[in-house]
């Protein structure tokens, strides 16, 4: 029951009016980010980091703000799935299948309401799972030595592409590029200048925040410019709420199943929120069997994936908080915030920065309640925002990104650097090199090198120490599987996901 005590302390942190205000603000902004076209969750959180930084927020407040944004974005993604048949973010893809048909039948309001409730249930289940699992895992992680950490980082990279990833080799290339960028600057242990070319601004290394903002925000702008999707969409009519209590009660088992499945796939390396919502949907279809009208606007077809992806988003915080190894783009960006707050993520955080960890977890619970409260009455407002044309929105977002980066250092050198990263991001995305491993490489590179050094010093230069312990060996094996499995299972799973998308009668 130690955990409960910590959680209470966490609530004490999260419930101060100051932090509560930022949680509310974050939840609101997060929903906006989730539903606006061209602003993914990772992108949105990335743009907010420099702002949180320059505002001089205390670490727990900054983390609460960003976690609330993260949770909010998962809520927001469903809105355009349901109304427009266009997923606001990738995990919301499965919500299109039954959400859009429901909207076409004039039940858009019901679909939005029930998906908000399902998101809440998923988020709640996921957070409870996080509360139970995280301390246990953190305790276990204390037994990790440098060799185990080195293997763990490899595992994180290897599984980042996910089982459904297309080309694992491109993930490897991307991660290596990221780590290479992180080696620029003065070597911490020896003081050797590496790849600085005598440029003063490079001595301290490349700030990963500007790299992240450049890679995400600027490349997104360029993509929109290229695809010329600047025009807005037509205004939507949501209609009246006709959801009955009976219908809602009927979906409770679905919510539970979806939330639990989502949480599990969030925790596991290589699965993630998209797979979480896919598995929840598929399982639901099998459990309900022929009685359901999946694909034609079955209410459970909306509930299952939404509960799944919100459960997964809480689950994804488990490896990030306990091991310092994020499994998704957005959690990687959250990790960037932690590192720039000078907090070493990992098991020690649970003892050294208990107020932050538990404050964040409590904020996640509070945030879910806030989001439910926000989402039901304000849905009309969010729907209006969907029709804001990207041609106005994206330039403004880009400008905010510029302001954020500029306000950190007040140097235009950083801005040029950010634009350069944006151009690089555009080309890499065009070549289907994933950006998230690059960012993870930037973040974890220094830690990886440090752990490699420690391990080899401890073993007196014997390289076999890296896979000597059974635990390290296990991590290496899973990492290897993470690279091989996508070749074996990936095509099959991807085909199934695509098939599910095509089965829906309304695919335009």
């Amino acid at each position, binding site marked *: 029951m130690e955990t409960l005590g910590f959680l209470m302390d966490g609530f004490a942190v999260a419930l101060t009016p100051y932090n509560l205000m930022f949680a509310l603000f974050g939840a609101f902004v997060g929903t906006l980010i989730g539903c606006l076209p061209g602003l993914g969750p990772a992108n949105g959180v990335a743009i907010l980091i420099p702002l949180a930084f320059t505002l001089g927020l205390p670490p727990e407040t900054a983390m609460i703000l960003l976690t609330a944004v993260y949770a909010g974005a998962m809520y927001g993604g469903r809105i355009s799935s349901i109304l427009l048949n266009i997923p606001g973010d990738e995990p919301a893809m499965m919500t299109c299948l039954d959400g859009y048909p429901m909207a076409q039948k004039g039940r858009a309001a019901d679909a939005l309401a029930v998906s908000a409730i399902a998101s809440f249930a998923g988020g709640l289940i996921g957070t409870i799972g996080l509360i139970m699992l995280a301390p246990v895992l953190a305790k276990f992680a204390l037994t990790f030595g440098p060799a185990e950490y080195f293997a763990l980082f490899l595992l994180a990279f290897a599984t980042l592409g996910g089982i459904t990833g297309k080309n694992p080799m491109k993930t490897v290339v991307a991660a290596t590029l990221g780590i*290479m960028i992180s080696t620029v600057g003065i070597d911490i242990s020896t003081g050797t*200048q590496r790849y600085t070319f005598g440029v003063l601004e490079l001595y301290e290394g490349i700030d990963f925040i500007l790299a992240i903002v450049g890679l995400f925000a600027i490349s997104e702008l360029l993509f*929109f410019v290229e695809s010329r999707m600047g025009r807005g969409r037509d205004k939507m009519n949501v209609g009246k709420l006709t959801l009955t209590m009976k219908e809602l009660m009927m979906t409770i088992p679905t919510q539970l199943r979806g939330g639990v499945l989502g949480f599990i796939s969030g925790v596991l390396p290589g699965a993630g929120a998209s797979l979480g919502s896919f598995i929840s949907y598929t399982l639901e279809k099998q459990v309900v069997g022929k009685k359901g009208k999946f694909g034609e606007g079955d209410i459970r077809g909306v509930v299952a994936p939404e509960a799944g992806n919100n459960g997964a988003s809480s689950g994804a915080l488990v490896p990030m908080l306990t091991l310092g190894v994020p499994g998704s783009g957005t959690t990687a960006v959250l990790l960037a915030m932690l590192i720039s707050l000078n907090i070493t993520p990992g098991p020690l955080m649970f003892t050294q920065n208990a107020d932050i960890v538990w404050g964040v977890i409590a904020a996640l619970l509070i945030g879910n309640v806030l989001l439910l409260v926000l989402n039901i009455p304000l849905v009309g407002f969010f729907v209006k925002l969907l029709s804001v044309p990207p*041609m106005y929105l994206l*330039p*403004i977002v880009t400008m905010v990104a*510029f302001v954020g980066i500029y306000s950190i250092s007040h140097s235009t050198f950083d801005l040029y650097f950010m*634009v350069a990263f944006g151009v690089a991001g555009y080309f890499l995305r065009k070549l289907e090199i994933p950006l998230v491993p690059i960012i993870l490489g930037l973040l974890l590179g220094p830690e990886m090198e440090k752990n490699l*050094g420690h391990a*080899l010093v401890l073993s007196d230069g014997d390289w076999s120490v890296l896979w000597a312990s059974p635990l390290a060996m296990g991590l290496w094996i899973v990492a290897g599987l993470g690279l091989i499995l996508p070749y074996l299972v990936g095509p099959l799973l991807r085909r199934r996901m695509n098939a599910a998308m095509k089965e829906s009668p309304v695919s335009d």
Partner: protein
Amino acid sequence: MTSFGDRILGLGLLVLAVAYGWAAQQWPEPFGGAETVGPETFPTMLAVVLVAGSLYLMIKPDPDAQWPVGKSAVELLISLVVLVVYTLLLEPLGFVIATTLAVGTLSWRMGAAPRPAFLTGLLSAVVVFVLFNYGLSLSLPAGLLEVH
């Protein structure tokens, strides 16, 4: 289906990896003699991994993406120029003027009519400027509009 994209990328990465790995071997030995893990150990490992990755890309490239040609490419170039010029003019012209021009031009190029585009630019510039300078007391450059 052609697959030049990956091949060119692979070639570029190969050059990068070799240069990166070679540069790592040139560093002077750190003070106090060589250890098992010097500053060059980790970069050397990375270079090897990247060489392998780039070779793979060249041998088994994915099919090419649709690259922008003609008008799209020009629009992309314009956007890029706008971003660079914005950075260049941010301090001399001041935030409000530079932002109005940058956001306005971008919106206009993305398909908005010029008047609403520049109005959006002006409005967002003023709102952000006021919010930052007075609300959050972070100073953005006032430039030409500075009151002496």
